[in-house]
């Protein structure tokens, strides 16, 4: 090999093929769907129960019920106290991890492959025979109420919650905090947990995903042993009608005395997971604010130094989740940062991305796909998404081809369909006295200052 000049970018070598790992599929007689992937690289396994038990199912008065029920699983089982359960799990190197979102609750653990049988036994105990002792439920409720207090004093959290509240009409679940409020969590008792468990922790509608150094036959046998006696099915998840609070432009300031930065959120209602624009939208959002070299970040950070970083996200759920551009910026440059962000968004929708940008975004998204599948936990999470959103089994086999086939026109169409600059709400949490005037001078929309909480 001769040494080329340093001045030219080195050419890529021959591409090595990558296929999404082969997924074995099956189901138990009780309806529990089983998905497993054998990854023999390291002696570790991730097991994940995916329950159709998200917060999106709940009325506002019950907000936080799914989260609380998941948290209370650590309180113990019919056979063990909470402390004994923790000791049993941790003595085999396994930590129980419960994740509750709008569309699901996942209960998972990772362990060394030779401890899988014991780990599955414990996972089964936790899910099928929890005990929800009054004393532990009370403790975990108290921890949650304190966490809500923390959440409501976290600058970024406050801004995000205010933005959600301003995005959705009254009564739409996505407008409220995922883990609920003091009022909705306050009345939580063991009976609340039992009620939710009875309704939503059922094999019919759930999925069990096991990824790692274990073969499909073993997984099947272990699932039969530990989850074969589980019975019942969940009622179908209802649709969520995600109505907006307003279709008018607006700038809302949430005052935070002495804030040294302003938290900015710009957006409106986005798209559901089932959006027909899924692949073009991934590409379009990468151009706008999904990567480091996106338009927003190059402008607000690398050109102007207004912020440590700015992102645009479409959160895709059963119903239409929010689209939100977020950044923390210096107080003195708040209005400048808002102006630049609005300008980038508006220009992208009006003129569309360039061919070069679309090409770079496609290459980025197709290229990073294998990087997002390095670990057993990552693979399990991706398969869980197929189960939660009823996506086809071959979804990931086609994923990179579908990203690569997105055209310039499709990306621009995604921008016009999914981003409506005249309906955006700009939320700024910060020092109201300093930022209100400059925001008004933008002359983009009326500026409302909320009462200090």
């Amino acid at each position, binding site marked *: *090999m001769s*040494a080329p000049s*340093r*001045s030219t*970018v*080195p050419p*890529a*070598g021959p*591409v*090595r093929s990558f296929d999404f790992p082969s997924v074995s599929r099956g189901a138990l007689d009780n309806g529990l769907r089983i998905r497993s992937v054998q*990854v023999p*690289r390291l*002696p*570790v396994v991730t097991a994940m129960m995916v329950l159709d038990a998200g917060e999106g199912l709940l009325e506002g008065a019950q907000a936080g019920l799914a989260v609380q029920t998941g948290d209370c699983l650590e309180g113990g089982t019919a056979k063990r106290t*909470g402390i004994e359960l*923790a*000791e049993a*799990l941790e*003595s*085999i*190197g396994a*930590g129980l991890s419960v994740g509750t979102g709008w569309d699901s609750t996942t209960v998972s653990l*990772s*362990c060394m492959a030779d401890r899988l049988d014991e780990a599955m036994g414990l996972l089964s105990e936790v899910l099928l025979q929890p005990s929800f002792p009054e004393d532990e439920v009370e*403790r975990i409720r*108290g921890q949650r109420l*304190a*966490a809500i*207090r*923390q959440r*409501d*004093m*976290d600058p970024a959290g406050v801004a995000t919650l205010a933005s959600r509240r301003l995005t959705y009409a009254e009564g739409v679940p996505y407008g409220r905090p995922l883990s609920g*409020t*003091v009022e909705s969590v306050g009345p939580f008792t063991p009976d609340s947990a039992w009620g939710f468990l009875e309704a939503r922790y059922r094999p019919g509608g759930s999925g069990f995903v096991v990824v790692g150094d274990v073969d499909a036959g073993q997984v099947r046998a272990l699932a039969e042993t530990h989850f074969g006696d589980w019975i019942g099915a969940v009622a179908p998840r209802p649709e969520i009608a995600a109505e907006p609070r307003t279709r008018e432009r607006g700038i809302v300031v949430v005052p935070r005395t*002495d804030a*040294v*930065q302003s938290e900015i959120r710009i957006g409106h209602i986005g798209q559901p997971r089932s959006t027909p624009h899924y692949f073009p939208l991934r590409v379009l959002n990468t151009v706008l604010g999904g990567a*480091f*070299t996106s338009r927003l970040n190059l402008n607000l*950070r*690398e050109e*102007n*130094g*207004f*912020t*440590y970083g700015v992102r645009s996200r479409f959160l895709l759920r059963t119903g239409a989740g929010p689209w939100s551009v977020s950044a*923390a910026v*210096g107080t003195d440059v708040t209005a400048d940062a808002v102006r630049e962000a609005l300008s980038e968004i508006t220009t992208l929708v009006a003129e569309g991305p360039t061919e070069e940008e679309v090409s*770079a975004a496609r*290459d980025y998204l197709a*290229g*990073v796909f*294998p*990087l997002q*599948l*390095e*670990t057993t*936990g990552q693979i399990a999470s991706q398969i869980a998404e197929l189960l939660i959103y009823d996506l086809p089994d071959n979804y990931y086999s086609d994923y990179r081809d579908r990203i690569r086939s997105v055209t310039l026109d499709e990306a621009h169409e995604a921008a016009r369909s999914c981003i409506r600059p005249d309906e955006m709400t700009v939320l700024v949490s910060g020092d109201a006295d300093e930022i209100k005037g400059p925001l008004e001078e933008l002359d983009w929309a009326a500026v409302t200052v909320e009462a200090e*909480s």
Partner: protein
Amino acid sequence: MSAMLSIPIERFTLDNGLRVNLSHDPSTPVVGVNLWYGVGSRNEREGKTGFAHLFEHMMFQGSEHVPKNRHFELIEKAGGSLNATTWFDRTNYFETVPSHHLELALWLESDRMGWMLPAMTQEKLDNQRDVVMNEKRQRHDNQPYGDWDEWIQGMVYPASHPYHHTVIGSMEDIEAATLDDVAEFFQTYYVPNNAVLTVCGDFGREEALVLIERHFGGIARGGDIPVLPGDPNLDPVIGGTVRERVEADVPLPRVLMAYRVPPYTHAEFYAADIAGSVLGSGRASRLYRSLVREQRLAKDVTSFVFPLTSGAGMLLVWATGFPDGDPDEIEGALVAEVEGLASVTDQEIQRAVALTETGLIRQIERVGDRADLVSMFDQLFDDPERLNSELERLGAVTPEDVSTFVGRFLGDDNRAVLTYVLETGKSPAPVTT
């Protein structure tokens, strides 16, 4: 007893002093490229705090053959991820890319190791100073408890010690940084003989060796690395109980306690690590069991041992109380649990090792993290293979080792206590919704 790790590692040294590790794993067509430079906040002189981190930002502003933003553009277009972090003892830079882009990552890393300075301008420095000041505001100044590290490091390490100041540094020092500082720092520390390069993942061995020599081989060796500023030597213990009480706009009271512990490079560190895990790792840990589950004094608890190498590391524990909680009571409970570590059981040690084992295996599932660990063991211990035996050292710790460690290091002659209380006049109010 835990399973042996057997991560393959081949080590080479280039003529210019660059240490190179290759760790092959063909299971996914991706490759991690990782560089550890032996420079961090401990190398900063008075008036220059935060500079190592600001410099890390400047490393992304281009080099002689790579215009500004091009590094990010090329890696992202290649379908890769990249970042860098600055810490007390080191600064690391890393890319994970599809395997066929290995040379791109090597070229980019070598260009900024060898040819960074021609691309530096005042405009770029001004821009990144603004970015870093906003980073400090976002992650520290605008966060409840965001200044804890400044307080704790100030109490645990004397003013003359390189760990006395934080990695992010002070606003004044960041603002005062000049292009001359950039040039001097680069020429002093960003030299091949102060760096470790690790390539991990799916690549051809011979090809990688040729590419590494091609891109890094021509970079001149630098001078010897200057001794650390200040005085890294210090007493093994603080010499008393020091305390600070901070009234702040925080949602909940919090008590943090820190102790000097032996450096990572000292054999006794492993007893400290086990003690830290028994104390605070997992839901069966002593702090969670006692303060959260039983006494209900704390909403959350944490413990962490800082694996530092200059003079002393640090064991940090904290507990966040409830709105009307009594910080003195929380402190008393923390002290009781820390001192109670003088007697730990074999079962507790076994659990700590088992949790660490699963955590380590999950970490090395990613080639980028695996490469980072290999670089770390090379940089800190001159022994990258140490990754494969790390669990054995932890597993060899006995209850007696922990007891000896606790007796020497976790008493009231070696304790820093930082208490956050709610600002007066801001007594707990009902939370708004």
